[in-house]
């Protein structure tokens, strides 16, 4: 159930320059979380009051553990990175709606950019059929081994050509030109927009996991909205990333901002 918890950190490590993975002991969240959901992490510093939303990268229902992977980009994530094994952390979750996993979908295309890759890990464990993971990074790939272990076919692009294809993930999609049945995508907004267009051009349905600055995370503050136009609607509405999303159908998102 989505609730406040105070789990213990059972592992914290730096997995790449400025990127950390943190494992929490939290049976309740591990037991109920769906792929694509996120949790709100609270800072110990009382001057930083708002929670930070972080996607669930992976859960282990048996062990009751939840893995998060986050980039240090500001004071909040910096503060998380200073926490150590054994420390407690306040969290709220699991929050939001996960990716839709539909029957009859055989070829799955995961498209992740940078710190958008984490939620694709748990997702990959739930998909039946062929899974391709198109992963784009600036320089250092993360979580590639995990996705591979879970059976995804890995296609990596780095902007500087450090590993794999030199270029961005869209160029990689163009090059490989695999025609899947469904795209699941998470990453920076320009990438999601490009993925959305790419998918549209090829008639592939695509789900995109969006980010927006949040306050409550549970749908009351109306802080986290994006312009969404559902099928059949005449006009867009500002819909909440936290509870209407974070995953939306790409064709419903108004990208023109």
């Amino acid at each position, binding site marked *: 159930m989505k609730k406040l918890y105070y789990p213990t950190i059972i592992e914290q490590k730096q997995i790449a320059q400025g990127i950390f993975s943190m494992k929490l002991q939290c049976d309740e969240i591990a037991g109920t979380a769906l792929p694509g959901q996120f949790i709100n992490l*609270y800072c110990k510093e009382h001057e930083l009051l708002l929670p930070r939303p972080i996607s669930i990268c992976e859960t282990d229902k048996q062990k009751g553990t939840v893995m998060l992977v986050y980039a240090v980009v500001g004071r909040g994530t910096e503060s998380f990175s200073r926490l150590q094994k054994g420390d407690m952390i306040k969290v709220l979750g699991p929050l939001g709606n996960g990716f839709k996993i539909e029957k009859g979908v055989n070829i799955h295309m995961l498209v992740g950019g940078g710190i958008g890759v984490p939620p694709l890990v748990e997702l990959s464990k739930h998909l039946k059929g062929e899974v391709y993971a198109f992963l784009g990074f600036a320089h250092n790939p993360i979580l590639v081994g995990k996705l591979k272990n879970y059976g995804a076919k890995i296609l990596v692009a780095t902007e500087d050509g450090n590993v794999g294809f030199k270029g961005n993930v869209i160029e990689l999609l163009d090059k490989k030109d695999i025609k899947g049945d469904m795209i699941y995508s998470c990453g920076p907004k320009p990438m999601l927009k490009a993925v959305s267009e790419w998918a549209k051009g090829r008639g592939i349905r695509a789900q995109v996991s969006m980010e927006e600055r949040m306050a409550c995370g549970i749908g*009351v503050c109306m802080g986290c909205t994006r312009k969404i136009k559902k099928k059949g609607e005449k006009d867009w509405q*500002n819909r909440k990333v936290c509870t209407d999303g974070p995953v939306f159908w790409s064709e419903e998102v108004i990208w023109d901002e």
Partner: protein
Amino acid sequence: MSKPDMKINIAGIELKNPVMTASGTFGSGKEYGEYIDLNKLGAIVVKGVSDTPWKGNDSPRIAETYGGMLNSIGLQNPGVETFIKEDLPFLEQYDTKVIVNIVGRTIEEYCEVAERLGDTNIDMVELNISCPNVKEGGVAFGTDPFMVEEVTKAVKKVAKQPLIVKLSPNVTDIVSIAKAAVNGGADALSLINTLLGMVIDIDRREPVLANIVGGLSGPAIKPVAVRMVYEVAKAVDVPIIGMGGIMDGEDAVEFILAGATGVAVGMANFINPTATIDVLSGIEDYMIKYGFNSIEEIRKGLVISDF
């Protein structure tokens, strides 16, 4: 020890305790119903409702600040009809008072919403003339005593329920605004709404909020809020609902000592979904510790020494 009596009375309506929710921070109660027993609240103040649906401002709408936050929601809401159809039936299940925060771009729009709500059995109307996040109406009505009196009068005329007027802190003289609202017929006052603020992302070199400026709330603003409640309480006779940075029972007591009859919990809900209930039990603890028998006793309990 017997539980202290926490009842309060606002404009003839009895609330079981002084703890309410601050408009816009509690949705219409549904979401927090998963965390707390809504029956325990003195009142639920729902988010701002307009005559027709409002889309609100562009995103980002949230920025964090030191000990607080900015919001520039811009009063997004599905309109009064949808509120009545979809949210009100949920709220009516509970044994708590329902106060509806109303917004408008013109006096006519405010009146329409108030009139429409007159057909329902909500308990009170809270006139929001203090939202800093909309270009027309909103705060424009709330910063000029003449306008405050006009809009209050007009809404009071059509409202069937008691009328609370919610004041903006972005004014030179809160007392003259409060008096204008009371002259216009306000049965109670609530304060404070958010202070106008701005945060700049120095790496991207642009304002964090799409709307550039937004409303500051949270513990950072509490001293300003307490001061305004204190000043207004000395100047008017109607009950006051105090808010601004209330995080726990002690903060709430501070507002009551300053002269508030009721208190509202806003941003704290985002940090702790059970904040309202925690505030409630904190007030109760304080009453037991110091032997207070009623909220009224606390409200009259401030000692001003003559230095």
